[in-house]
C-alpha cells in the first residue's frame, strides 16, 4: 500500500468512526423525534370535541382538495390577503368537507405552532447554555420570561386596550428585560456569572411586580388569561400564530446554525476564544440576541413555556455530544417532539384522566415532564452544571 492511499484510508476510517459514534446517534435522534411528532400530530388531529373516526381524520390530513390547491396552502401560510394578491384569485374558495375543515383549520395549525415553539425554545436554550457556559441555563435565564410576564400582566390589567397586541407586547417585554440585564451586567465587558446574576436580579424584581399586578385584576377571566400566558398555552392557536412565528423562526434557526462554530469556540472559555481571534463581547451579545429572538417568537404565540429550553438541549447533548452543529440540528427535531407530545397531554389529558373537556396550559405538562427528568439526571450524573 502506498503512503497516499494509507493516508486517505486513514482519513476515511477516522471520518467513518466519528460518524459511527455521533452521526448515527444524531440520525437516530432525528428520526425518533420525527416519529414522535408524527404520532403526536396524528393523535391531535384524531381527537377533540368534534368527534370523527381516526380514519376520517387521517384522510382529512391528506385531503387533496387542500394539499393540491395552492390557494388553500397560501391562505394558511401567508394569510388570505396575500394569497389573493399572489394568485389574483377573487372568488370564494371551494367548500371543504367538515372533517377537513376542522383538521386543517383547528387541529393541524396547533401541531405546527407546537413544533415551532419547541424548536425555538430548544435552540434558544442551547445557545444560552453556551453563552453562560452553564448546562442549567434556559432561554429565560437572562430575564426574558419575567420581562414578558410583566408586560403581559401590564397589558391585561392596566392597558386592556392593548390586548390585541399582546403577543407583540410580550415579546418586546422579554427583549427589553434582556437588554436591561445586559446593561446591569456590563462593566468593562461582561462575564457569564455577571450575566446570570443580573438575570436573577431583574427576574426577581419583575416577578414581584408581576405577582403584585394580579391583585389588581378585576375578574377571574383576566387572571386565567394571565396564567395561561405566563405558564404557556397553545389553546386556541391557529394559522395566524403559525404565520406570526414562522418568519422569525426561520431567521433565528438559520442564524443559530450559521453561528454553530462561534458557539463551539465560545464554549472553550472567554480567554481561549479571545486568543483565537474572536471578539468575545460582540459575539456573545449577537448570539444572545439570536436566542432572545427565538424565545420571543415562541412567547408571542404560546406565552412562557418552561423547561423545554432547559431539558431538550440537555437531552440532545447526552446523545450527540457537545459539538454545536450536531446539537442544534438535534434540537431542531427533539424540541418539536417534546412540545408536540406535551401538547397532546395538555389538550387531551384531562379528557382521559377525569373525562372533562377542559384543557390545561401546556407549560404545566412540560413542567411535569421536566422535573422528573432532572431528578433522573441528578441521580445518574455525578457532575451537573458545567458543560
Amino acid at each position, binding site marked *: 500500500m502506498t503512503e497516499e492511499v494509507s493516508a486517505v484510508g486513514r482519513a476515511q476510517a477516522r471520518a467513518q468512526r466519528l460518524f459511527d459514534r455521533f452521526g448515527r446517534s444524531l440520525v437516530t435522534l432525528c428520526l425518533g423525534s420525527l416519529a414522535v411528532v408524527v404520532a403526536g400530530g396524528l393523535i391531535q388531529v384524531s381527537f377533540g370535541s368534534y368527534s370523527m373516526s381516526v380514519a376520517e381524520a387521517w384522510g382529512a390530513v391528506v385531503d387533496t382538495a387542500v394539499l393540491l390547491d395552492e390557494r388553500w396552502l397560501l391562505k394558511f401560510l401567508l394569510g388570505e390577503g396575500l394569497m389573493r394578491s399572489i394568485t389574483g384569485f377573487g372568488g370564494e374558495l371551494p367548500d371543504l368537507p367538515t372533517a377537513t375543515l376542522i383538521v386543517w383549520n383547528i387541529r393541524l395549525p396547533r401541531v405546527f405552532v407546537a413544533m415551532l415553539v419547541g424548536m425555538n425554545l430548544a435552540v434558544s436554550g442551547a445557545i444560552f447554555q453556551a453563552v453562560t457556559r452553564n448546562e442549567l441555563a434556559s432561554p429565560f435565564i437572562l430575564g426574558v420570561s419575567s420581562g414578558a410576564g410583566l408586560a403581559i400582566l401590564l397589558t391585561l390589567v392596566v392597558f386592556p386596550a392593548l390586548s390585541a397586541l399582546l403577543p407583540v407586547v410580550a415579546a418586546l417585554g422579554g427583549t427589553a428585560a434582556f437588554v436591561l440585564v445586559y446593561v446591569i451586567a456590563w462593566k468593562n465587558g461582561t462575564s457569564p456569572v455577571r450575566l446570570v446574576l443580573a438575570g436573577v436580579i431583574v427576574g426577581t424584581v419583575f416577578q414581584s411586580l408581576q405577582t403584585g399586578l394580579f391583585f389588581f385584576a378585576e375578574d377571574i377571566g383576566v387572571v386565567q388569561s394571565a396564567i395561561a400566558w405566563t405558564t404557556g398555552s397553545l389553546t386556541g392557536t391557529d394559522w395566524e400564530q403559525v404565520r406570526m412565528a414562522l418568519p422569525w423562526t426561520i431567521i433565528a434557526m438559520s442564524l443559530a446554525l450559521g453561528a454553530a462554530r462561534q458557539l463551539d469556540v465560545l464554549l472553550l472559555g472567554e480567554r481561549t476564544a479571545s486568543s483565537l481571534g474572536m471578539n468575545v463581547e460582540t459575539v456573545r451579545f449577537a448570539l444572545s440576541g439570536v436566542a432572545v429572538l427565538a424565545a420571543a417568537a415562541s412567547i408571542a404565540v404560546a406565552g412562557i413555556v418552561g423547561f423545554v429550553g432547559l431539558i431538550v438541549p440537555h437531552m440532545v447533548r447526552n446523545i450527540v455530544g457537545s*459539538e454545536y452543529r450536531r446539537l442544534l440540528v438535534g434540537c431542531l427535531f427533539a424540541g418539536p417532539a417534546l412540545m408536540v407530545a406535551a401538547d397532546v397531554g395538555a389538550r387531551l389529558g384531562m379528557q382521559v384522566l377525569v373525562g372533562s373537556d377542559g384543557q390545561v396550559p401546556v407549560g404545566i405538562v412540560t413542567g411535569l415532564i421536566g422535573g422528573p427528568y432532572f431528578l433522573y439526571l441528578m441521580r445518574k450524573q455525578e457532575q451537573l452544571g458545567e458543560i
Partner: protein
Amino acid sequence: MSKHAEPRPDATDAQTDRSADDTPTDGTTFAGEDLVVGYPGTDRPVIDGESLAAAPGQVTALVGPNGSGKSTLLKGLADQLDVDRGSVLLDGRDVHDLDSKELARQLGLLSQENVSPESLTVEKLVERGRYPHRGFFDGLSAEDHEAIDRAIDLAGVDHLRERELASLSGGQKQLVWIAMVLAQDTDVLLLDEPTTFLDLHHQLEVMEIVERLRDDGEMTVVVVLHDLQQAARHADYMLALNDGTIHARGRPAEVVTEDLLAEVFGVEATVSPGERGPRITPVRPLHDDTDEQVDSYSD
C-alpha cells in the same frame, strides 16, 4: 517560513537546514516597548514601563516569583489585556492595529487554565485552533486538515485523536491544548506556565515540543515558567521579573546567578555550570527582616 512535521533526527541536521540563508535568527520579531500593563479597576499598573524583545526564532523564558507580573506581562504582549501605554510590535507592526483574527493567525497564546468541554474529542478541539483562518461560512479546507494533522503530530497526541477530553489525564490534556494552539499555525507562540501541575514526564514532553518548534519551524516562543531550573535548561534567553520590573535579562548562564536568586527569588542557593545550563541548588529561604538573626543562628 517553512514548517516540517517530521521530527529531526538530530540538531545538526536542523542547523544545516537553517544555514540556507545563514541567519540563526530567522523567526518573526516580537517586542514590547515601554509597556504599562495593569488590570482595570486597580490604581497601580502591574508592569510599569518595561521594554523587551523576544529573540526571533528562539525560546525566551519569563521567570520570577509569584506575583512578579510575568503572566500579566504575557497577557499584555498577547493583546489580551489592554496596554495602558507603550506598544507591542509583531513583525514590526503594532498588534493593536491588527484585526483580532489577523493577530490570531500570527500570534498564539496558551493560557494557564483552560476549559475543556468534556464530551469533545481531541481532534475536534484541535480543529478549533483553525478558527482565525476560517471565514464565517467556510468549511474545513485541505489546508485546515493539514494543519490539524501537523499540530497533532507535533504535539505527539495522534494516539489520543478520538478520545474525549474528559477521559484524559492532566498531562495529556495539556499536550492536546498545545496541539490546538499549534493548529493556529502562528509565527509567534506565547505559553503561560505550560508545565505547572504536570508530572515530570509531561513537563519534559512539553519542553521537548517547544524546542522542536524552535528548531524545525523557527518559531519565536515566549514562555512563562515557574520552574527556574527548567527555564535555565531549555530557554535560549531569560528575563527575570521582580515586582513588575525586569531585573535581569540575557543567556541563562548570565541571568541565573546566586545574586539573582537571593534578590529576586529570596533564596540562598548555589549555582554551578552544568552540561545542560546552570545548575541551581537551593539552600534555604532568605527572610528580609530577619536576615541578621538567621545569620547569628547559623553557626
